[in-house]
């Protein structure tokens, strides 16, 4: 029997069962309540669009249905900065950092992982449509049972000894990437009662400018949990949400081996390139 952890040992004592007691933002709200909150925010967004407000492309930082965001979002507007030298460049990664085999998540152990083998492939582009070549992509994900190899994930689903769920790649000359992995499953979390995340793969991306740095999540087409998920729905614009959903692509599917999904990622615009173009004109 677990005892209530004190604040001094909260990090070591936390398990899935008691995690909600440690996060003051976790709630016992029902799915219906959370869905109502989401619907109200989306309604408000639609009305603002009609009134002429710009389309939103990014998630709201202040999004009450995602309870953990309550005390972790800035309340002041982001402050505009004109990027200076260091902000116009990004760290360099390459062969020294990433081995070619790190893009195959199914060969990291002695045996074959359990689950549906998939290929996820696409391109990384910037907001001008330029390929982001030679840059680092990192992914991580749950296994086919919806379990992460992470000590804080204690929900009762099996760990697969043949699947860690971490991959890396360096993009090719046209910004292309390809990962071989196992399709992750949905999993429960503590945001509200009976809360489940849609299946997703986390992606971490770099551009040519560090201001393009982003971390996001890729989802699978047709997931019935989309409408219920406050993290996915924190993106108020439906077209923007679609940009996180991969497409089933039979040309990426291989005979008797793996099904294929295509997902292209667009980073924000480079500020270096257009400044250079402008300088070249003078």
């Amino acid at each position, binding site marked *: 029997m677990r005892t209530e952890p004190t604040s001094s040992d*909260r*990090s070591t004592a936390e398990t899935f069962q008691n995690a909600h007691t440690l996060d003051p933002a976790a709630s016992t709200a029902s799915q219906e309540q959370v869905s109502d909150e989401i619907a109200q925010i989306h309604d408000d967004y639609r009305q603002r669009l009609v009134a002429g407000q710009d389309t939103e*492309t*990014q*998630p709201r*930082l202040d*999004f009450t249905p*995602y309870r*953990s*965001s*309550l*005390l*972790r*979002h*800035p*309340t*002041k507007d*982001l*402050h*505009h*900065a*004109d990027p*200076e*030298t*260091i902000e116009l460049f990004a*760290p*360099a990664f*390459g*062969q020294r*950092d*990433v081995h070619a085999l790190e893009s195959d998540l199914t060969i990291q152990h002695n045996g074959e992982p359990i689950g549906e083998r998939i290929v996820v492939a696409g391109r990384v582009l910037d*907001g*001008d449509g330029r390929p982001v070549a030679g840059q*680092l992509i990192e*992914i*991580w994900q*749950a296994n086919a049972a919806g379990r*992460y190899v*992470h*000590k*804080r*994930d204690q929900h009762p689903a099996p760990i697969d000894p043949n699947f860690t*769920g*971490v991959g890396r790649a360096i993009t090719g000359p046209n910004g292309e990437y390809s990962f071989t992995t196992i399709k992750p499953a949905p999993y429960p979390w503590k945001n509200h009662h009976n809360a489940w995340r849609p299946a997703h793969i*986390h992606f*971490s991306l770099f551009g040519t400018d*560090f201001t393009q*740095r*982003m971390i*996001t*999540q890729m989802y699978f087409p047709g997931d019935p949990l989309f409408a219920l998920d406050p*993290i996915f729905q*924190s993106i108020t614009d439906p077209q*923007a949400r679609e*940009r996180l959903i991969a497409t089933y692509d039979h040309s990426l599917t291989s005979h008797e081996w793996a099904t294929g999904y295509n997902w292209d990622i*667009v980073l*924000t*615009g480079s*500020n270096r390139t257009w400044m250079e173009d*402008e300088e070249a004109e003078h």
Partner: protein
Amino acid sequence: MAQHPALKLAPTPGQTVGPFYGYALPFERGGELVNQAHPAAVRLHGTVYDGQGEVIPDALLEIWQADEHGQVIAREGSLVRDGYTFTGWGRVPVDNAGQYNFTTVNPGPTEPGKAPFIMLTIFARGLLNRLFTRIYLPEDTAALANDPLLASLPEERRQTLIATREDDGALRFDVHLQGALETVFLSYPRAS
């Protein structure tokens, strides 16, 4: 200042890093941009707080900076550090008390007269998209006074971007995601 050209493609939305990045993103010596034995080694440290002043134990921080001469570096080897190659980039998770540590060098000004700063990116569970800010070095007060970004901020907000130099030479920079001491977070042109 010229008008920023419009984007051709709509950017993909970000999402929270979530709670389970700990086995995926941190890497060995991720916070050691230089070895502690490097003659110019400087500790950069601080704590990440939420809107009630509680420490955040599940945030991930990245820094990106010029070297001590103000040169922007384009060298591989950040993820597999050899202990000698300065790559300008580092990544650390905060510890259970919300504290982080980098070992780096003081960046030089990237242009003469510019106030040197380190770029900082913050990811956390509960934070739906990454946040950017700048960690300015406190010494060059003339350059700080002339800095366009700092000049555009009221005094109390300006201070949230300037690190404190401690007696042992370390830089201290706390991050407040919310509240009276809320750090100034930045947006850049051409984000949408």
